[in-house]
């Protein structure tokens, strides 16, 4: 397998806790997409947050089809929860971690 580039992957929130690290470096083939980063990180990881993630590439939201380049910063973002008061229509709380 030809490994042609490296990207930096960042984990936030509940995902950082479950990965045990805030970031890692990944080696990818030329032409690899965001989706492949998600799948590589997900391999062996548990929990349902993976379905609800958003992805940012170089600090902007990006789709799964986005083709990556050498040195890209890829951030895996669980649903955000800034601000304070929750709208009454929101879902249940997460489990104790």
């Amino acid at each position, binding site marked *: 397998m030809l490994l042609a580039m490296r990207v930096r992957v*960042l984990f*936030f*929130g*509940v995902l950082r*806790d479950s990965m045990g690290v805030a970031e890692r470096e990944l080696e990818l083939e030329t032409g690899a997409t965001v*989706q492949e980063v998600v799948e590589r990180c997900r391999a062996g990881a548990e929990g349902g947050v993976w*379905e*609800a*993630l*958003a992805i*940012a590439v170089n*600090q*902007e*939201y990006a*789709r*799964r*089809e986005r083709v990556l380049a050498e040195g890209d910063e890829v*951030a895996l*973002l*669980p*649903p*955000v*929860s*800034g*601000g*304070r*008061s*929750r*709208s009454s229509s*929101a*879902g*249940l*709380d*997460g*489990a*104790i*971690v």
Partner: protein
Amino acid sequence: MSSGLDAAELSAAKRVAIVHERIDAAMVTDAMKAGADGAVCVFDGIVRDNTRGRRTLYLDYEAYEAMALAQMRDLAAEAVTRFKVREVAILHRLGRLVVGETSVLIVVASAHRGAAFEACRWVIDTLKKTVPIWKKEQFEDGAVWADGEPFPEEIVGSAEGAVR
């Protein structure tokens, strides 16, 4: 032309911030007021003492900071354009906050009140869905990452793409 920042950008940079210390709502609000304003609408999000009856000790906020700040600047600029208000301030605090402290402050100054209310509401609603900030809530018997609201469709792409 020489500085690379025009007056509007310079102003926006001061009005939108991520901070690690106490937010002084009065100072921000007073600094925002200008002669052309007839209405100022403020949203002050503060740490509540409970979530669904479970007692909260404190909250820890963290962010993907550079991206969060860029998103907040975009939100402020879009609110000005979309609602035709004069100016929007957005401040979010990170780190450990105790009950009663301000986590987020949004101030909208406008000639008319309708636009001020609508812009303020839109900013906090959109911020809570799109700006990469997370909070972990500390209860007496453990800590929980607060569930966020689902990302809007335009951010995650099609459901198919997201799950594949």
